[in-house]
């Protein structure tokens, strides 16, 4: 015999798709997002150095979240969406 139990989760499935990956970084605007953890800037400095050395991006933007403790504020997300082709986010400690 089976009985019905109610679902404790919110089972509505929100479908999300990945953004299209660029084949190359050449001519792209790349944003490097520091989440404000200590040493994240050192890591991103090196990433920026390597990008300039190995890829030919149109521009590299450096942006910082006000705090790692919360999601990026809406205006920062809007700015990244408007200005960058892709974002590299750095977590460090």
């Amino acid at each position, binding site marked *: *015999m*089976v*009985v*019905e*139990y*109610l*679902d*404790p*989760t*919110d089972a*509505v499935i929100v479908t999300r798709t990945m953004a299209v990956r660029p084949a190359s970084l050449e001519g792209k605007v790349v944003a490097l997002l520091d989440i404000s953890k*200590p040493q994240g800037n050192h890591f991103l400095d090196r990433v920026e150095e390597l990008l300039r050395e190995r890829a030919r991006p149109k521009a590299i933007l450096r942006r910082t979240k*006000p*705090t*790692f*403790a*919360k*999601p990026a504020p809406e205006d920062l997300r809007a700015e990244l969406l408007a200005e960058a082709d892709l974002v590299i986010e750095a977590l460090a400690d």
Partner: protein
Amino acid sequence: MLHEADPAEAIEQLYAQGVTDGLPVVPPTRARVRVFVEASGRPADELIARLPPNFGRATIEKIAINAVLAGCRPEYMPVVIAGVEAICEEAFDLHGVAATTHFASPLAIINGPIRKELEINSGANVFGQGWRANATIGRALRLIMVNLGGARPGVISMSTLGHPGRYTYCIGENEEESPWEPLHVERGFAPGESTIAVFAGEAPHGVYDHRSRGAPQILASIAGSLAVISNYRSTGWGDTLIVLSPEHARTIAGDGWDKPRIRQWLWERLQKPVRELVPDAECGEGLPEKVLARYADPAREETLIPKFRAPENLIVVVAGGTAGRFSAVIPGWTFPGGSQLVIRKIQR
């Protein structure tokens, strides 16, 4: 969801679905859930909040299902609902608390007459086992975080070590044994109102002091434990809980000290000169580079840096049994911009 009627088999199936905390749960039959929804006095589809980080919808019915799972009694529903509202307030930063690598978990602190009505323990063994309301209200909040917020351990909830309070973490304030205004009255509620406060806390750390007989002596012991929370060199800390046992509280109040004076005294005492906070070979933690850059010679700088951002960050409650000169400090998850204690009225 269809399950075997055998409760033992249902427990296995619910565990396999990943909707439990590892302990057996009460199967949420439609009939049980209906009783809980009715006890709330609110419509089943009323939306209370969307829970970060996955923003699942916490309707009255979904809260009820999780409260059944947790082993609550129907009359606990108003407390669980207010707890959901509290953890979803922006100041609590549930997104961060749910996902962090830190230890923190919401500690529910209940004030007001509902403690007696629901037999919420505020006395002996207050953080321990043995009281259904404490055991299941805290558990329901955690199951709601997992099942509606998506905070599955190791998937979204990335706490490195966690702590046992992640199963349940719920206390009453021992207002009857407190010489001071209880937490909810301090925060603007009437003594006759009932509230739930949520605080993103680590596990309690015991402070043992049987021999001090004056307020400054006991508080010096407590300051010694507060000084080392997170790291003995960390500064700028936010909301932190000090749980005074009735005996300690009575001795401190007996010297004429009130909570504001306790906070101010501890805050002033918990400061270190810059020179003791410079990362070095002994300990790599300390003041960040941007702060050290303000001083010409940090290794000799005497400017004092407070452990806590403000005296108000030191939150004092009285709880526990009437015998025993033990108190506790509970570090929060309080980076600048991080979680603050949030308190909500329990609507009945």
